[in-house]
């Protein structure tokens, strides 16, 4: 069909009798920053969970580079090039910050477990390469000075950056960020905005964003999908969304534009 990198085609998800996501369709094109917004309970995070297949869709198809990916195990989706962060952080608290990133890099590890057991040269060589790659990412995410701290000891904002760094470590094509600005102060949000743009412009990532902070969404997004009660109600560029009466209605006129 089209040249979309990721396509949702009439995707639905039921929880018991509740329709959490109702025939959701949208296309995500390479190099785009697409945001999904909507009131609480609109089904935004559920849509994310369907794409990364924490649970499969009840109906419809999700295609990545033209291939149907619904039903694939979660780790295969990550392996295929779709990385994500979580609304409630899911970093590895008992690993150091560097190790958190190294776990993300693990899928690029080319040596077998036998070479590790036997401590072959290829094992040591590969460990050194992974460490160098990790350092680059830590530098990028401004985490270099806390690299050896246990992730659990970091402040919340830094933990969010650890999670993003970990997602980037898998060298994904699509990065899905689930409410990255939650719990951040205005200064941190401003930094986040710069970061998201840099991910796209400098690292050529395609970005899918769920976010409540309207100023952030309006500022960084190329396109916006608005959801309400599981359905997509509007899709368009930020200016169109800003003035759309349906959107304002969905938010009960309380859009803090």
């Amino acid at each position, binding site marked *: 069909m089209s040249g979309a990198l990721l396509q949702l085609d009439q995707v639905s998800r039921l929880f018991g009798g509740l329709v959490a996501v109702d025939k959701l369709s949208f296309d995500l094109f390479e190099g785009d920053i697409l945001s999904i917004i909507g009131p609480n309970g609109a089904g935004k995070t559920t849509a994310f969970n369907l794409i990364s297949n924490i649970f499969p869709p009840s109906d419809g198809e999700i295609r990545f580079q033209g291939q149907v990916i619904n039903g694939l195990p979660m780790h295969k989706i990550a392996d295929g090039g779709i990385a994500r962060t979580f609304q409630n952080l*899911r970093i590895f608290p*008992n690993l150091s910050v560097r190790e958190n990133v190294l776990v993300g890099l693990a899928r690029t590890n080319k040596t077998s477990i036998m070479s590790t057991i036997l401590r072959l040269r290829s094992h040591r060589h590969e460990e050194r390469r992974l460490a160098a790659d990790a350092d680059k990412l830590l530098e990028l995410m401004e985490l270099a000075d806390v690299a050896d701290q246990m992730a659990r000891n970091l402040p919340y904002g830094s933990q969010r950056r650890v999670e993003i760094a970990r997602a980037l470590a898998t060298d994904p094509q699509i990065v899905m960020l689930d409410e990255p600005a939650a719990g951040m102060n205005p200064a941190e949000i401003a930094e986040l905005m710069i970061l998201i743009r840099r991910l796209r412009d400098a690292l050529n990532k395609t970005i899918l964003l769920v976010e409540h902070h309207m100023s952030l969404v309006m500022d960084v997004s190329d396109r916006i999908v608005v959801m309400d009660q599981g359905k997509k109600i509007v899709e368009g560029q930020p200016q169109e969304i800003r003035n759309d009466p349906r959107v304002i209605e969905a938010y009960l006129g309380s859009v803090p534009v």
Partner: protein
Amino acid sequence: MELLPQVLVNGLTVGATYALFAVGVSLIFGVLNIINFGHGAAYGIAAYMAMVMLRYTGFNIYLAFAFGVLSAFLVGYLIERIAVKPVREQPILMALITTLGLGMVLENGLQFIFGPQTQAFPLPETHEPFQIGDTTISVWEISTLVVVVVTIAILHVMLKHTNFGIGVRAIAEDRRAANLLGIDVDRTILITFCIASALGGISGLLGASLYNAIYPVMGTVSMLKAFAASVLGGMEVISGAIVGGFIIGIAEAATSVYISAAWRDAIALGLIVVVLVFRPTGLLGRRGLEKMERPSLNIMPLPPVPKLTFNHPMVYGFLIAIALPLVVHDNYYLRIMIIMTVYGTLALSLNLIAGFAGLISLGHAAFYGVGAYTSAILTTRYGMPVWFGFVSAVVVTGIFGVLFAWPMMRLRGHYIAMGTLGLSGAIGVVMLNWIDVTNGPMGIRAIPLPSLFGIEYTNFGFYYTILGILIVSTLLVITLVDSSFGRSLRAMRDDELGAASVGIDARYVKMMVFGISAAIAGGCGSFWAHFVSFISPDSFTPGESIALLSMVVLGGLGSIPGAIMGGAVLSALPEVLRFASDYRQAIYGLVIMLVVLYRPQGLFGFNSVVIRPLSRKEPPKKPDAEPQEVGQ
């Protein structure tokens, strides 16, 4: 079949006692989401207390049984207050270990007071068994069915129609919300525990009357059946536990009659595994899987991974261990040192699974056993050289470990503990009954000693061999946990969903870690077989698995030197405290309970952490209280 009615009668009555016991397990699991591994104590203590009353006082049977139930009620009180309440908000592993520990102490207490032997249960004379066609049914069998039905009916009314019952169900849904609604959560949980234990006590009294026999560990034996019933029915569903109990009772009765009584005990254990593999929610369970999805159950702050350096304290430890035989020539002490090193290595290998992968395995003795049997069979029956037996044991047990892990793939937390316990128990029954291969309970004798350059091993040789195995294993474990694989392992322990989100295949990681850990344990098993030159299934029981887990917990989960020290210290304890050898189980039980309650990071574990649920924020650090010296 003429036998069928009799099978049904036997199966239903025994099943009824399992059902009642399992209801208690499910009740506690439903309310608290923990499994009470000390539940068996109520069963045994009720039976022994009633026995004492019947034998030494003029009490009639009703008073004696009432006294038994009351004792069980108090056991519930003790377990909840001592072992559960302090760790209620902590990772489930904690309550698993504390209840297990307290249960072991209580059961060992019975053994201490009444002796380990099986005794008759002094029941009063009753009417002759009734004869219907070819089927006999005794008065005790009839009363068992009546008592169980009545008890369950009362429980049902209580849960449905009383304030207490509403409180219980509210807490099961959401503890915090129940608290906000003014339900006294603390008290309700306590009473639930007491009632669950009382049910266990009734079950114990009925079991004792049916078999007309009591022995100290009767509770643990029945507890495994109750776990199986609970799992089969769907952990938190009380009706499921009842159905599960009856199914297991009938299946066991049928096995005894149609196959062989020897395989009877494998039924429950096998069922645990089959159900967990194919339908982890059980027959009637609905939310089982969702509860399993609850993340981060195993997390607790763990020590950082040691790096390989030449000045690590472990290096000095090993140097001392190498030098020790220069000072210690006595064969007796050498023997103890060998035992300590074997268990240090075993604990180290279990720590890979329990500490680094966060999977609470109660089945490690199975690996140790498979290694021992592989080597023993190859060298005695096929005349293979000892080194070949050893290498084969490592390889075979490694593969066995991978296969062992396969059914555990979908399981987490408690379910892993249940699954490994069930599977290793079933393997124990196979060792006992597959006589053609394992020689059954007689064990394998005259396992050849290893020799080097034509000279047979002495204790010196054995000591340096096992020390070599330990050092190589330690290097292997350190390399592994600090590698790409090890990081994936630890990441999965911390957050399985998070790990999957970066492409880590939890199945692969789990199977590999079980394989590697099993291979090390298999090597230890082979060593042990050639060292003592006699093995039997007695050495590889679930009790042994629990002892191994105790060693890891004592030393410190996720701590490499800790596990080694834990294994060495705890295995030496019964030897050093010769007088206390009868209380081995009680010592282990007490040690693991106290360690978890007062020093959860283990004796040799990470020092500077305080265990608390991760959801809570760290308290703000107090500003350094430097003495403000005014006027200087």
